[in-house]
Structure formats: C-alpha cells, structure tokens
C-alpha cells in the first residue's frame, strides 16, 4: 500500500491523526512531544500566561440544525481556550471562499459569528479573506485563532487526572456529529437533532470557582468521548472506567447511531466538556454544573480507577466489561 497518500482518516481526530502529528507535523514544526499537547498552547508573558490556539472549519453541510460553520468556528476556538482554563481575549478570522458562493449565505454566517462572539464575550480583532476559483474549495472554509488569559496559579492539563477522580460531562453526547450527519445524508427524522454547538467559557469560569478540585478539562470534539478519554488516560498514565448505563444520550441520537452502525462514544460534540475532578468534590462540582444552562443534563459517567495503564474500559449496560479505544480511521456505517 502507498503510504505517501494523505487519507481522510488523517483528519478524523483519531489514531491516524495522532500518527500524522507525531510522525510528521510536530517533529518538523516544533519538536515538542505530543504528550505535552493540550487544546491550547500556554505562553509565559510578562509574568502572566497566555493561551493561544487555532482551528480550521470545513464542515459539510455549512448550515445544519442548531448552527452553521460560523458560530461553530467561534465556539470551537473559544472552547479550546477554555479547556486550559483561559478566558478568551480576542479571535482572528480567516475566510477561504469558493468563487460563486452566495453573498447572502456569507452574510448569514458572519452574523452568526458575531452573535457567537458576543455571547462568549470575545472580540473578533483581526481577519483575512481569500477567494479561490470554483471547485478549488468547497463553498467556505474558516480558520479561527484565539488568545486568552489564564488566571494565575491555575493548573488545568490533560496530564493531571489522579486515582479516585470522577469523570463528569455537562450533557448528552453525540448531538453535533449526528445532527450534521443526518442533514448530510438527508435522513428524515421525526425528531430533529440539533447540534450542541456552544461556547463553554462561562461554564468553565463557574467550574473554576472550585479551585484545585478541577484537574482536567477537555472538549470531546472529533473522535468523541472515547478518543478524548483515551488521550487523557495516556497523558495522565491512569486507567479510567466508564459506566455505560449513565451515559447521557438523547433517544433520537441513540436511534440514528443504531441505524447507521455508529457508536455514540466516538461521535463529535461541539458544546460538551469532560471534567476530571477530585472524587471528594465531584458531587459539588456536578451540582454547580447542573445549575448552569449548558450543564442541566450533566452527570458523573466514570472514574479514574487505577494508576498506570493508560487504559479506558467500560462496564456495559448489561454488566459486562469491555475496552474503549481511540477512533480508528473514519466512522464507517454497517453493511447489512
């Protein structure tokens, strides 16, 4: 097989993405090993710490139930900053437009970006626009970068999970991926599934009132909850056990997953965070989460059960045990 080709799976957020990062991108560009990677880079500056992150958006379709590529691009970058505990200061916007794209749709996307930025309390400070000939891009691609300020003394990192910690999530899983997939495939559902796209920085600010009890924050986007927890288990060198019976899942999402042979644990979220918190404080953090509008359906879905191993396992609905691995390749539907 030809290993020179970049495959779609290299952009899945799963194992192939990790391989590409570890083998090519990071060694060539920076040399920092992957285990030190969080959602945003931390830069020491003038006695304080800045968080810096970037992300590109290529979602298809551009408009989907619950949002569009514009608010997604703002929320995603705000969330990457929030996951290291930073409050966002400013965002840049790079637009790549395909010749022939609709001005009206662009206006709708920009309006959504502005609204999302206002809700998150961040300013869009700078930007750039390019247009490429028809067929050289698909309608619209957006890159956003963001900087934020990390409160002094705060230590939030994927490497901080400890034995006895609990794993919390602020609501139902898989909503975004299934909303986009259902629209893309033209599935006609009785109940519309909406993307959960939302800025999480206000919720994070609330959670940080709990101080040292918050050990890890991570948003389970591409690759889903499974891939994100596996990354944390590897980074913190711990084993995590999930309880399938308490995973929050909307019935229509469960239904579409069953129909298409998808596992909701691997489906992307855009308004969810996983918080790994001190076991003693977990109930209190949960209540705090549930008081926030973006955390009404929050629950404790697992715990850090052992040191070492870098493993994630799950007690299934029926009481069996199985391993949970990272997403492999793309999510593929069943055949019969």
């Amino acid at each position: 097989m030809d290993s020179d080709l970049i495959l779609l799976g290299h952009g899945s957020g799963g194992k192939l993405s990790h391989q590409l990062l570890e083998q090519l991108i990071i060694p060539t560009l920076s040399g920092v090993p992957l285990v030190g990677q969080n959602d945003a880079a931390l830069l020491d500056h003038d006695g304080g710490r800045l968080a810096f992150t970037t992300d590109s958006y290529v979602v298809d379709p551009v408009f989907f139930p619950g949002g569009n590529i514009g608010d997604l691009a703002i929320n995603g970058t705000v969330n990457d900053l929030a996951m290291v505990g930073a409050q966002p200061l400013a965002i840049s916007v790079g637009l790549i437009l395909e010749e022939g794209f609709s001005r009206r749709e662009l206006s709708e996307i920009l309006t959504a970006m502005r609204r999302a930025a206002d809700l998150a309390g961040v300013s869009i400070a700078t930007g750039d626009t390019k247009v490429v000939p028809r067929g050289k891009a698909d309608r619209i691609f957006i890159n956003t970068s963001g900087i934020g300020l990390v409160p002094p003394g705060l230590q939030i990192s994927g490497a901080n999970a400890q034995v006895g910690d609990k794993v919390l999530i602020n609501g139902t899983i898989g909503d975004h991926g299934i909303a986009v997939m259902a629209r893309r495939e033209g599935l006609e559902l009785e109940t519309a599934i909406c993307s959960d796209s939302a800025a999480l920085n206000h919720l994070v600010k609330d959670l940080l009132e709990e101080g040292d009890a918050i050990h890890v924050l991570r948003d389970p986007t591409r690759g889903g909850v499974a891939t994100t927890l596996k990354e944390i288990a590897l980074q913190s060198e711990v084993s995590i056990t999930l309880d399938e019976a308490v995973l929050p899942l909307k019935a229509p999402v469960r239904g579409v997953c069953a129909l298409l042979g998808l596992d909701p644990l691997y489906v992307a979220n855009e308004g969810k965070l996983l918080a790994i918190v001190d076991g003693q404080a977990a109930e209190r953090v949960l209540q705090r989460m549930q008081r926030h509008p973006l955390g009404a359906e929050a629950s404790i879905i697992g715990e850090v059960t052992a040191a070492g191993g870098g493993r994630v396992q799950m007690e299934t609905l029926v009481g069996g045990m199985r391993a949970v691995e990272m997403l492999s390749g793309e999510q593929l539907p069943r055949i019969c």
Partner: protein
Amino acid sequence: MNYSDAFRNREIVRGLAERIAALTCGLDRPLTFMEVCGTHTMSIYQYGLRSLLPPQVRLISGPGCPVCVTPVGYVDKAVAYARRPQIIVATFGDMLRVPGSSSSLMQERARGAEVRIVYSSLDAVALAVKHPEKQVVFLGVGFETTAPTVAASIQAAAKQGLRNYFVLGAHKTIPVPMQILSADPELGIDGYLCPAHVSTVIGGGAYRFLAEQHGVPCVVTGFEPADILQGVAMLAAQRMENRSAVEIQYRRFVTWEGNRQAQALLAEVFVPVDTAWRGIGVIPHSGLAIADRYAAFDAARALPVAVEQPREAAGCRCGDILKGKIGPGDCPLFGTTCTPENPVGACMVSSEGSCAAAYKYGPTSL
C-alpha cells in the same frame, strides 16, 4: 422502560447467564456455539457478553461478515473500476478500506477516483440518474438481507430505462456454508446462533436440513444482549437434552417461511451459483449471480475488466478466523502489523469483522 430497553436489562441478562451456568454445570468439556452473523459478533463484544458466560460455554465467530468473506480479487476489480475516469464506484462504507492485492478504494479515492459511500443501493441508482454522463458501478456485497434491496435497485434502474447503472455482485447465501463448517471435526460446533436479519428473509425453515439431517442444533437469535443469551440458553438446553432442532428465539421478527416477497424478488433478479468465500474456498450453491434477463446491469458482463492474479497478504490468517479455527488474538499479525488504520485483512476492516471487534473492544472480552 421502553420496549427495546428490556432486551438490555441488567437483571434479565444476569438471570439468563445464571440459567446457562445452571444448565451446563458439571460438563466435562465446553460447548462450542458459533454465532454466524457479524452483527452478533459485534454485539457480543460491545456488551462484553463473554465475560458473563460460564467456562462451559465457548462462543466462536463464523463467516457472517459479508465484507470479510469477499475474495481479494473482487476488491481488485472494484479498484480497477475506480481507476476508470468515466466510472463512479458506489459502495457501503465498509468496503472502502478493504485491502486488495495492491490498493484499496480509499487509496484510489485519495488519488482522485470517484468513490461514493451510499447507505442504500437506491442511492446508487439516484447517482446514476444525477450523472447521466457517468457509469455508476454499485458494489453489491452482502447476504440474503442485502440482496433483495440490490435486486430492487436493478428493477428500479430497469423501470427507469437507465443504461448507466451496474452492479458488481458478490452476494452470498448462508445455509450451505454452515453445513460445511459443522462437518469440520476440528471445529466441533455444538450449535448455531443463526443470523437474525438474514432469517427474516429466508425464514427459520431454511435451517431444518442442518438440524434434521446433520444433527446440529440451530436457534435463530436476535441481536440484543438478552436475545443472544436466551439463544445460547436454548442451544445449551438442546445439547443437554440430546436434541437437535431449529428453534426461533427472535420470534418478534422471524417466521418459519420468511419474507415471501423478498424471496420472489431474489428469484426474479438472481440465480444461485457456486461462489468463492475468502478463506474457505468455492462452495456450491452459496452465491447469487444476476440473472440473464438483467445482464445489462451486471458489471461483470456489461463492463468487463481484467485484473491480475489476486495476491493474499503474507501471514494473514483471516481464513482461519472466518472458519472459527482461531480467534483474532491468535493471529500473529493482530494488533501489530494489522490494525484498523493499516489493515492487512478484511476482518480488521469491517465494522462486523471479528478482528475489528476484538481490536476495538479489547482483550477483556476475549
């Protein structure tokens, strides 16, 4: 609790596991039951069901993953079609990463070939309507469950007078291979969990020859955890009572005679043929070829393509895994040379392949 939740109910499942343990208590050798269908395999791994069974019951996976039993030469043909600029290859997603002799559809797509994932064969017909300037080749892979939908797509194309829709067929039928595997003394199969969806089409009666002439207990079993454990309990009971019969556990969907309309559709569009199963070889009357009256839609006849002698990857033991002779962990390539990102054999690719299931859900379930 809604209807389907009952089949995943922890107490019901535990009760069934206890019943199986009580039935088989004191046996001096374990009973070996084969789940034929890839969806059963997936469900068993996904719910960790092996961890709930007593040591007296061994579940082995059979050849019921359609992508896995498709020979390498078929993938080579699909790749050859994908390389022709005027052709769109339409396929279910599972075929995309299956390695052929030297390439896969995913690699061809990355090189610019038009390979589209569809969720239904009728979507492939729609592609042909939308692209009259192109030829659409749909990869018809699957068992008796998928075959009627492909038959319907051929009829739909015929009705619309389409001249640019073709099916590269590799449809297979399950009962005869089951008989061949049950005759293998090395496997020592004590009973079959017969496939659920396939049986909705062919009916429970299709397995009678296995139970009555070959003495193999058969239970048509659903896919939910409680279905599977109840199916195992019914098989264990037959063995303990020295009986062999066909029983239907999945009564909410499967009848003795099956879906007559789907059967008629199959008889109209396809004819039974001998066909090659990857790892097993040619099995008489185990495939469905497109009937002469629909030859214009048969890619093999209407768009012939030549490929070189197919090459199986060195060291790949998919064949033994498909026959249930070894488990995924017994293959020396498993998890090292052969991973879902870089699969050597189809069993590691398909969402219904045993190796993919073992890799994803881990050795805790082995």
